[in-house]
Every structure is written in structure tokens, then in C-alpha cells.
């Protein structure tokens, strides 16, 4: 069994988890929620094994040039899916709100589908510019940060769906929205996920700068990728400060979180697919 097999298992498991979480929102059955969690954990385990195997296989195919599986668009997407599940499971462990899965696991599932159907999984040796341990530190921290923002975005979407209804109705609301966490909890999940993601993004930017300085002699050159990562950083810094002021809580910070994640995705994919720059993904 090779890494490819386990990536397939991962995709199936994330699909099953996604369907089960949505089914949970509709049926409110705790049994369905238990299945959803099982699929998530199983998929995460398969994803972990697949990444490990691909790392091992890189040494078999490339000999001494083997490397951690974080060097091209395909590998980064499957690592992103892994990170999303990791952060989601951590948040789920703390808050025990299965409905959140219906809004977070799809990010991981669609990432896997995209990687497997559209992206090249070929394992090529690295061009000289990428042969550095900084690459690994940089990618891990950035993607864990992005994943935390994905979870925050999912919680913010739920918040916005729920808040309007809750304001209109007095008393608890039933139906599908009844299994959504309360808006207070959603707001807290949003905030906590960003508190996890922000320092990780900061470390990601700093390791990127350290690497650029080591490889080219400039830690900052305002290339589009760097600039977009700074834009993302600014948006989340604004989010965090907005939480300190009255009048900015609730809807507005939920929107900021969604805008932040949109900027994150643009920083990750849009810059390479739309703009041009130094970074290799998608090139």
C-alpha cells in the first residue's frame, strides 16, 4: 500500500465525514455525530499516514534528495487538508460542537478532491532555490495558521446565518439552526481559532523572511506573495483589535474573519494563479 492509496482513503473519509456532519445538522442525531467524528479521525489518521509514506517514498525515488512532502502545490494542498482537520479536531475536542464540522470539513474535502483530480502528484527533485530546511518550517507554520483561519471562517459563516434568525425570534430557535452552537460560542470559536492562527502566521512570515534573507540577502522585497501575507496579517490584526472595542463585536468581526480567510486563500492560490512572483507553488 502506497501513499496514493492512503490519500484516496483520506478523501473518502473526509467525504463521509462531511456528509455525516451535514446529516447531523439535519437529523440532530447524536449517533450520526459520532459517526461523523469517527470518519474525521479516521480520515485524519489516513492523511497522516499518507504524508508520512510520501515522505518515505521520496527517499526511495530520489535517494538522498528525499524531502518532507511540502514542496509543490499538490503536496501543500494535502498538507493543508491535514492541518484543517488537526485544528478542527482540537477545537471540537474543546467545544464539542459537531455542527461546526459541516462548515469546516468541506474545506478539507474539496481541497483533497482538487489535489487528486487536478494537480500533479509527480515527485520531482527540488530546484536549488527550494533546497533548504527553512522551506519545511515556513510551510508548516503558514499552513497551520491558514487552517486555523479556515475553522474561524466556518464558525463565522455559521454565526452570520444564525444571528439574524436569533435576533428576530425571541426564545430559542428550533430546526436546523437549533443544533448550531449559540452565537456566543460561535463568536468565541472564531476568536480562539484566530488567536491560534495569528501567531502561527506571524511565525510563518518570519521564517519566510529569514529564509529569503539567507537565500537572497533581502528579508523583505514586497513581492506579491510576501505582500499578500502581510495583507492577511493586517486583516487579522484588525480583527483582534476590533474585538477590544465596542461596536465591532458580532457581525462585523465575523465579516472580518471571512474577508481574512478570502485574503488567505488569495495569498495561497490567487497570487500564483493570477499574479507573478518568486514562490513556486502553482508555477
Amino acid at each position, binding site marked *: 500500500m502506497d501513499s496514493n492509496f492512503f490519500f484516496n482513503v483520506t478523501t473518502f473519509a473526509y467525504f463521509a465525514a462531511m456528509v455525516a456532519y451535514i446529516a447531523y445538522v439535519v437529523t440532530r442525531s447524536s449517533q450520526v455525530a459520532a459517526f461523523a467524528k469517527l470518519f474525521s479521525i479516521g480520515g485524519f489518521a489516513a492523511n497522516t499516514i499518507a504524508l508520512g509514506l510520501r515522505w518515505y517514498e521520496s527517499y526511495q525515488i530520489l535517494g538522498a534528495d528525499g524531502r518532507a512532502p511540502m514542496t509543490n502545490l499538490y503536496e501543500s494542498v494535502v498538507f493543508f487538508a491535514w492541518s484543517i482537520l488537526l485544528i478542527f479536531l482540537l477545537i471540537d475536542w474543546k467545544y464539542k460542537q459537531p455542527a461546526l464540522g459541516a462548515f469546516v470539513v468541506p474545506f478539507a474535502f474539496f481541497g483533497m478532491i482538487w489535489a487528486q483530480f487536478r494537480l500533479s502528484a509527480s515527485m520531482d*527533485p527540488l*530546484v536549488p532555490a527550494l533546497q533548504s530546511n527553512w522551506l519545511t518550517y515556513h510551510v508548516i507554520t503558514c499552513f497551520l495558521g491558514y487552517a486555523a483561519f479556515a475553522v474561524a471562517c466556518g464558525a463565522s459563516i455559521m454565526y452570520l446565518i444564525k444571528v439574524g434568525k436569533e435576533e428576530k425570534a425571541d426564545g430559542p430557535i428550533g430546526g436546523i439552526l437549533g443544533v448550531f452552537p449559540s452565537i456566543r460560542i460561535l463568536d468565541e470559536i472564531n476568536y480562539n481559532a484566530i488567536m491560534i492562527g495569528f501567531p502561527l502566521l506571524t511565525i510563518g512570515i518570519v521564517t519566510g523572511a529569514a529564509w529569503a*534573507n539567507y537565500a537572497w540577502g533581502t528579508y523583505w522585497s514586497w513581492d506579491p506573495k510576501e505582500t499578500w501575507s502581510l495583507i492577511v496579517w493586517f486583516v487579522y490584526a484588525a480583527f483582534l483589535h476590533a474585538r477590544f472595542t465596542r461596536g465591532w463585536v458580532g457581525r462585523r468581526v465575523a465579516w472580518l474573519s471571512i474577508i481574512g480567510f478570502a485574503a488567505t486563500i488569495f495569498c495561497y492560490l490567487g497570487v500564483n494563479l493570477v499574479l507573478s512572483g518568486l514562490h513556486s507553488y502553482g508555477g
Partner: protein
Amino acid sequence: MNAKNTSSPDHIWDFFCSLKLTIFTLLALSVTSIIGTVLQQGKPAEEYIREYGQANYELFKKLHFIDMYNSWWFVALLGLFSVNLICCSIKNFPRVWKFVTQPLLVAGDGTFKNSANKAQFTSKESAKSLAPRLSEVLKSAFAKPTLTDVDGSLNLFAQKGIYSRFGAYMTHLSILVIMAGAMIGTIWGYKAYVNVVEGTQTSQVWPRNGSQPIDLGFSVRCDDFDVTYYAGTTRPRDYTSDLVVIENGQEVLKKTIEVNDPLTYKGITFYQSSYGPAGNGSFEIEVTDNKSKEKLAVNSAKGQKNALPNGFFFSVDDFTTSYDSFGPAAKLSVVDPDGTRRSPFIILQNHPEFDERRGGDFSFALKGFKEPQYTGLQVAKDPGVWTVWVGCFLMIFGSMSAFFFSHRRIWIRISEENGKTQVQLAASAHRNQAAFAFKFEELQKQIEATIENKA
């Protein structure tokens, strides 16, 4: 009307301290930064004109969009950002300092009444005998408390994580430190480049934005430049240059640099960045006279006419590093003694026997091709870079302590009234309240269990 609120210096001061300004500046920086990622920066005028037309180019120039990260308005936004940071720190720091140096050892009635975390017990035991035991509980379950006696009521105060109060300030300071580092680098450093041909040396480099060369104060020689490929492919694996630093005629430092592994001497760093051909290459050709079986080694440049025995000549007309899948190949032609040029033919470096089959007076084998290269070096001097790293470290450490650690405080008041002893608890955390509430509940139970003789 309150005079303090209307005086304009206070207005200005409050404006520069305000969080609203922070949010505005952060979002303004985000939005304006996008311009420079969509519009390529620092290109020659013709490129913009070709792409966007003359009128748009004039507009871009007027708005400084072509070099926007150095434009007055972008720098001004960054300046506003720093002023905001400095002002809000000046405003708030004394309060935080007071928090740290003069902790609230004795809580007032309001605290015991209004805290999110509070509890109350009564006991028949005297305050004097209760206090040491509660003190022990606090010490083992939370932190060592301070005891203050106020008119007979005994007050315990314990706290943890006081340093997280500094987290935000450390983060804010870090941004200023990073900006200072960047400024030091801009003022006292430079970014330059230089091309060094193999076997030669240079003591000057060319700045990115300037026409006057910079003297290094020492020389750098390139002994060799090499590209290595992954086995069986044309994918470059590495670019390396053997560099030697020469100062006052002495070789002081030798290093083979590669991409991701530069050389640094006296604060000046040399990075492998590009390479290229420098002048004519030379072919090493072995000629066999098919009649006499004599062999002859010839070194020839491209296009050069080389004499052969009996009045023949040959020249190397063309060269490629990969001829289909056969590897390096050269195109040669032979000229007869009477001046007629015969049709050209190909020889392959990896198949030296190949040309024998052609027949003719001579057969040729390509032994090698040497082409002098230059190595393109990026040269950087940045005395601010360590300041930047210190700032980055402060930022990571500061933002983590601001987010993940919270300042937690617990107050206990033990007072005797009408023959009964009253124990009041209050606690607060400045962050992560939910987790702290949970912890407080446990502590409350422990304290309750400690109190005997409940009334």
C-alpha cells in the same frame, strides 16, 4: 460642558491613541498594499505604456503607484501606524506598570460582589486558624498568596501570569523595533550585484539603484563556477561558485557557495544568484588520420579554421548540449586543399566511435567543451538585520504571551462578625475566562472542603 473634553490638544492625543485609528490604519494598509501586487513595481516606463497606455501611465506616476511601497503616502501610512502604536503605549503603559508594581492586595466590597467568579462561606472557626490553611490551599492549587491584615480582617491575594499584561506592549514595541531595523538597513546598508568571470577577481560591486560602484575594501575571486544536474536529467540540482576573499594580498577566506548557502565577510554577504557564458568556448577535438592512423588533439573555438595534415582544414560550426537524446554534439565541416567545403556532419561527445563510420580522410571525436562562465552574485550589506530578528522574536513571544497567557488573580477575605467567620472569594482572569471559571470551581470546592465547622 467639560473643558477637558473639548480642548483640542486632548482631542488630537485621543485620536492618535485610539483603537479606531488602529483598525482604520490596518485596513487602509491592507487595501492599498493590493495595488502594488497587481501593478508590477519598478518596471521601465515603456512597459507600463505598452500595457496600460500613456494616459494611465501618467496617472500611475502621479499617484506613485509604480514604486508605491516607497511613496510618500504609503510611508506616511506606516508613520501613522507607528505614531498610533507609540501614543497608545504611552497612554496605557503606566496603568500596566502600576498593575505589576502595586498589585491590589486587598479587594474591596465591590470586587467580592461583582466578580464573575465569587463564593462565600461562613464558619465557626476563627479567622486566625483558618487563614494559614486557606493559604496552604491557595499555594498548592494556584500560587503563593500574600497576607494582609486590615483592621482584623485577613486578606489573601495570589496571582499568576502577571507578565502576560506586557504581551501586547511587547508586540507593539516589536513592530517599532522591526521598523527601526529596516531603517538602519536602508540608511547604512546596500543591495548590489556583481558578475565575476571564473579565474578573475573584483573589488567593486554595483548597487541596485545607483550608477557608482561601491568599493568592498577587499577582493573576491571566483575560482570555478559549476552547475550540477540531477542524474540523467537536465534539471539543475545546484549552482556553486568557489569564492576566495583576498585582503591586502592575502587569501583570508575560502568557501564554495551555493543557492541557500552564501558567504559572509565583514558584514557583506555574497549570494549565488545567476550565471552565464563569458566569451568564447573552446572545443577539445581528437582527430584521427584514417590513412596513417595518427591521432591529433586540437583545441578550437567556434568558427575557427584549424589546419589538418595534407592541406585540409576543419571548423566547428555549431554546438548543442543535447542533440535529441544523444547528449552534447558538435557540427563540423571539412575543407579540401582545393578550397571546396564538404557537407557538414555531426559528432557526439558520448559516442566517440560514431564518426569512424562516416569514412573519409579524417574522423573526429569531441572530447570536451570548455566555456568560461561568470557567476552572478547578489551582494548585500545590512547592519539592521539583527535588529529586525530581535523584533521578530519579540513579536512572536509577545503575541503568544498576549494571547495564550492570562493574568489571573484570586482574593480571599476572612472576617469575623457576630461570632461567625465569613470567608469571601473573588477571582478574575483578564483573558480566557471560560477556562478560568472552570478552574475556579475546583478551587472553590477545595476551599469549601478545607473549611470545617461550617455555620
